[in-house]
């Protein structure tokens, strides 16, 4: 459904993303991970139209979308969340989502927008009453609202910038289960961006790892977690700690050590 080919983004002399190609299949959850500054966000912003690629192509549902305006990309069936939630505080929770339901789906009718909003709020587990304000939400609630806004735009592909920092372990698990539920129940394809491997590895079908703007590994979570290049990027090459840290990474990723 999404085919990215030879994607390059340069800022002046700095190459943030260097010749990255990948594919996402219908109904899949692709994890996109890498340390800070590895180019995840840059790729994400090119997919969602915030940045224009220096070179390369992005084909979504058979159409070229590289360099298209963000709102047009949203309307073509891609939804996105922001890493740090960006709610509209002057609107109520419901209005936030209603807005996305209206403008994200070609501005059809308010009734249709309301229906999308109710469905999205129920999906993420936020109250569907019309008066609750954004100020009543905590960190986890704001992330849910972010997700509800994205869902209300009626996406076929969801770009989830789900940095789970700031959430406790229980909330992280909930957030991960939520993404899986969205895929299973709504049939929405998902690209999930994270900088820690942790809980992501449990949910995704496939993982792509970036470092310094280049793709260094791609495949099933278990294979990627034991890829020496990935371990090096995440844990360094310090001989003493490598083995223990790799085991720790596997434990956190929920992957059993090889017998």
């Amino acid at each position, binding site marked *: 459904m999404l085919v990215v080919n030879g994607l390059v983004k340069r800022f002046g002399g700095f190459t943030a993303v260097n010749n990255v190609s990948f594919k996402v299949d219908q109904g899949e959850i692709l994890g996109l991970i890498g340390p800070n500054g590895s180019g995840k966000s840059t790729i994400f912003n090119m997919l969602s139209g915030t940045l224009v690629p220096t070179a390369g192509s992005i084909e979504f549902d058979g159409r070229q979308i590289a360099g298209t*305006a963000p709102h047009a990309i949203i309307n073509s069936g891609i939804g*996105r969340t922001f890493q740090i939630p*960006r709610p509209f505080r*002057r609107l109520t929770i419901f209005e936030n989502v209603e807005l996305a339901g*209206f*403008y994200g789906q070609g501005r059809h009718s308010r009734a249709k927008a309301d229906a999308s909003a109710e469905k999205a709020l129920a999906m993420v587990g936020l109250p569907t009453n019309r008066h609750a304000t954004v100020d009543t939400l905590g960190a986890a609630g704001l992330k849910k609202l972010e997700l509800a806004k994205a869902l209300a735009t009626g996406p076929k592909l969801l770009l989830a910038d789900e940095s789970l920092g700031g959430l406790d372990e229980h909330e992280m698990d909930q957030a991960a289960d939520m993404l899986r539920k969205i895929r299973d129940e709504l049939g929405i394809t998902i690209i999930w961006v994270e900088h820690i491997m942790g809980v992501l590895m449990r949910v995704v079908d496939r993982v792509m790892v970036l470092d310094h703007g280049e793709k260094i590994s791609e495949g099933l979570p278990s294979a990627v977690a034991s890829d020496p290049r990935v371990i090096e990027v995440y844990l360094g090459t310090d001989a003493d700690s490598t083995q223990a840290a790799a085991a720790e990474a596997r434990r956190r990723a929920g992957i059993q050590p090889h017998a």
Partner: protein
Amino acid sequence: MNSRYAAWAVGLAVLIALPFVYRDPYHLHILVLILIWSFAYTSWSIMGRFGLVSLGHGGFMGVGAYVTALLWNHLHITPWIGIPVGMLLAGVLALIVAYPCFRFRITGHYFVLVTLALSGIVLQVITATREYTGGSLGLTPNRDRGIWALQFDDKTTWYLIALFVWVVGLVVWNWVDRSMARYAMEAISEDEDAAAAAGVNVTAEKLKITLVSALMTALAGAIYCQYQMFISPDTVSGIAVSLQMVFAAIVGGLYVSLGPTVGAIITILLAEILRIGFGTKAVGWDNLVYGLLLVLFIIFLPKGILGSILERLKLKKA
């Protein structure tokens, strides 16, 4: 909700009946001025309430007034055509100035400065073409009576015309307030990227609201011209008029529909009291008082007089 509509209907009926019962020409004159300026301030606040602070509205008002009067005086084109032409030109001017601003994300103070320049440019054009416009001495539309010329001696007629445009302004304000466009504009004023991620075409939404605001303001200028039968850069165009709009809208209250009207009542009464009380000695004093009050209001009453009163009432009820 029904009681609210009833209150509006009764209020409107009283306002329509007023000139048939009460005929003091001076007081009617003040009321007509208040209604016309209320309409202008309401027009400004339609975009101003979303943080699109324009100091270019004096320019739009000037275009509406001058185009109407010039077409009448020089080409003998009726204001019935001149007013739409003036509004159209103001709309085109708004799009020419606003499109690059919105496309290239000129917001906040920078947007204010660009629009301030617009006011200045319109003022310069009016004074530079003084053979046609009369420059800073002003312009009087050629006398002719009746519907075709849109000139009436009767204050009651003008009162009803002014009342009509004022109501149109409030209807548009409320229509925007209840539409999804308001949600979009609130979202845009907070975070343009997040609004775009909700599918909002940020540039298009901002242009729409700016266009509506500019068209209405141009209409206010033209109506003012037809009523006063005299326009000059000081009274209907330029930077002073733009500042006055900002001041009145903020003082009255930007976020409630009658806020700009309250602002107009206060500013016009203030100007009249200073004029009657101090005569020519007080020329320009009103601007000084405006400036001081504006600072005080922005610091202590950012929701304006009416906005703050309504908020108190709501809190009491709750």
